[in-house]
């Protein structure tokens, strides 16, 4: 891409803190005795269980099949027996259904998919079916089924495929390491997705703070007619709408999807998973996750099987030096705070972050002084301060009028607020209330 990327309005520049883990190569986590695989790992319908207690499974065997079109199957992370179908702590704090597998230590593959080495001449429909069968979701954090994005409805034309390698969240380096160490697979994945969509090209967007990944990818990208686009460092550069704007100049209308502006965006880790599913016949049973934070003894990037408890992940990095104030799944801007070490790694767990007491934001909120900093940084150009007051006063109609539904919950406004107001929280609440009212009307 010779064209310069467009700069979206707003954004913030938190200290990226990526140095803690960015030079640590991806390591394979050793096999555990027990995995607790959370059943529902995708946006959309939960998958339907196909195993029962006591069943013997091999690595990659189906545990649950897709429960609809917007749903993906789930596969066994290793070989062993299904010890229990019960519950384990979920990322939102509620107990969620999970499948407990006792590993037999053999880690033996079951009947996996047929590798499709000649994907260039393969029917795109077959490739797309493989993406679905392999249970691949958006691994950047959302967990949206990948095959759904690759199935534009009748009448929607896709002309641009963008791979998201921005990784704009501070601390996280998993995508960075993937682009460095598995650059071939990233580009291959891009080419396969392009073929599914009937496109000749693809663009990989990477923030400029990863020059080594950019040069690594650029070196081989030409092989598959893929281009690499360096992007300015500005959180939330990796938000889908901002990324599309930076690369194509198109604005996704409020409430619409990338395909409404003829774009498909996939995360780089998902692209690797897609490449592996197609050419190796490998289902989605693990992922690269950054385990980091100042309190962590040896921050690093690890390949974890699905169902690995956070506790085990933390043991691998040597535990902590001091008691952290927060434990997050994801990055510090959008990650979800956890209260249990029993939560297990899912397909969208991009990071396990421990935040020290001195850097975490523990605050009492003060009145808004209308400084306008939130207005300045909002990447969606809405008025956070005013919307937050509307929600506080339960004026959801007003909040809706002020386009609270356009909010992408990036947290930039809360990040800069000198009064430490829980702006992001207000918007989440506003959106939930408005959606509830809409449902009532129907």
């Amino acid at each position: 891409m010779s064209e310069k990327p467009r700069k979206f309005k707003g954004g913030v520049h938190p200290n990226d803190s990526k140095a803690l883990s960015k030079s640590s190569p991806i390591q394979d986590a050793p096999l555990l005795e027990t995995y607790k695989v959370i059943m529902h790992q995708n946006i959309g319908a939960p998958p339907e269980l196909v195993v029962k207690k006591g069943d013997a499974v091999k690595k990659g065997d189906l545990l649950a099949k897709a429960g609809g079109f917007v749903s993906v199957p789930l596969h066994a992370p290793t070989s062993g027996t299904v010890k229990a179908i019960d519950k384990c702590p979920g990322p939102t704090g509620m107990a969620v259904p999970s499948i407990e597998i006792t590993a037999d230590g053999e880690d033996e593959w079951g009947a996996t998919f047929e590798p499709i080495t000649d994907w260039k001449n393969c029917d795109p429909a077959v490739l797309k079916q493989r993406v679905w069968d392999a249970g691949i979701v958006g691994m950047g954090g959302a967990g949206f089924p990948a095959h759904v994005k690759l199935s534009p409805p009748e009448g929607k034309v896709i002309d641009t495929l963008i791979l998201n390698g921005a990784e704009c969240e501070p601390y996280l380096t998993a995508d960075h390491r993937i682009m460095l160490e598995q650059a071939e697979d990233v580009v291959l994945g891009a080419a396969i997705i392009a073929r599914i969509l009937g496109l000749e090209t693809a663009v990989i967007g990477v923030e400029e703070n990863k020059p080594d990944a950019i040069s690594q990818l650029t070196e081989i990208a030409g092989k598959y007619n893929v281009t690499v686009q360096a992007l300015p460092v500005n959180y939330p550069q990796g938000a889908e709408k901002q990324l599309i704007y930076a690369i194509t100049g198109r604005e996704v209308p409020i409430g619409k999807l990338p395909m409404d502006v003829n774009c498909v965006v996939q995360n780089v880790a998902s692209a690797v998973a897609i490449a592996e599913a197609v050419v190796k016949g490998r289902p989605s049973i693990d992922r690269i996750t950054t385990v980091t934070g100042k309190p962590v003894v040896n921050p690093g990037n690890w390949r974890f099987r699905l169902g690995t408890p956070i506790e085990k992940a933390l043991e691998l990095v040597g535990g902590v030096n001091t008691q952290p104030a927060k434990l997050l799944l994801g990055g510090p801007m959008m990650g979800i705070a956890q209260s249990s070490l029993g939560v297990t790694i899912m397909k969208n767990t991009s990071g396990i972050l421990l935040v020290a007491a001195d850097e975490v934001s523990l605050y009492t909120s003060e009145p808004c002084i209308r400084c306008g900093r939130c207005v300045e940084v909002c990447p969606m150009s809405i008025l956070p301060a005013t919307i937050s007051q509307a929600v506080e006063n339960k004026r959801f109609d007003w909040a809706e009028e002020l386009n609270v539904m356009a909010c992408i919950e990036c947290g930039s406004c809360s990040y800069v607020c000198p009064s430490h107001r829980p702006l992001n929280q207000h918007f989440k609440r506003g959106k939930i209330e408005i959606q509830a009212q809409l449902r009532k009307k129907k």
Partner: protein
Amino acid sequence: MSETQSTIQMPDPTRLVVSNSPHIRDNQSINKIMFTVVLAMLPACLAGIWFFGFAALKVLLLCTVSCVVIEEGWNKLMKRASTWKDGSAILTGILLGMNLNAGVPWWVCVLGGVLAIILGKQLFGGLGYNPFNPALVARVGLLIGLPEIMTTWNATRGADVVTSATPLGMAVGDTSLGNLLSGNVGGCLGETSAIALLIGGAILLFFKLIKWQVPVAFIGSVFVITGIAYWINPAEYHSPVFHVLSGGLLLGAFFMATDMVTSPMTKKGSLIFGLGCGIMTSAIRLWGSYPEGVSFSILFMNALTPLIDRSTISKPFGYTAPIKGESK
């Protein structure tokens, strides 16, 4: 693993805080903003003390202490938490002092503090809820209630007379460009030194505590309008340079019109706000019965701020106009 496990320290999940994202914040706070503004006001205060002597320092201190004491007294009375540490009362106090003549009696400072903190701020609900700039509420209240005290000016050091008119009021004394720039003219103790105010304004702009649109539109429109008047009739009107450098324009444009709470949040709104202030100030100065109109025009525009904010809402990213006839 079992051997090393005992030596590994794990986080205690019972001591983990669970709250909404984002989990990190930049280190800005109300308190820091207020004290940076105070820092930006220091050059003008020092210039005031230099030219008007110890009396100026006394007025500044009295106003500041009154504002803080009154704010805390009000908090006690209303059974609210202490708020003086957020710095806003200190800021209001200094700003009030800068808006007073160095020779005012002590009780004027205290009365000003009551007007600023209670009438200007607390009756509306405290910091963030006041529609008008508290220091200006006090200044205008005092100006209307005590016109004689408020329009008698101390002479600067070296001048023989005890009192003199402000340059704008009567255009007497040495109002050379040099004196206007340095501040060696009569007036409120914080408004006379153009250079000191410009340094303060630069500090505010550097720390991004004010939007440039406000002072630029304010000062620019005063310059243009008074310039046109001067061009038409130089015998009756002062030059635009004189208008910009004298009176409370620079103090108002950099420190009062830019008050976050009482000015628009949007950039476009700030431009309109500044323009409105400039047009009103010029009109009052050129044709009004008061020699000075900065305070009145800012207060007037403060009242319009909610309207300006509402009419300058920018188009959100990805906004598409709803198609006519289509229901939501």
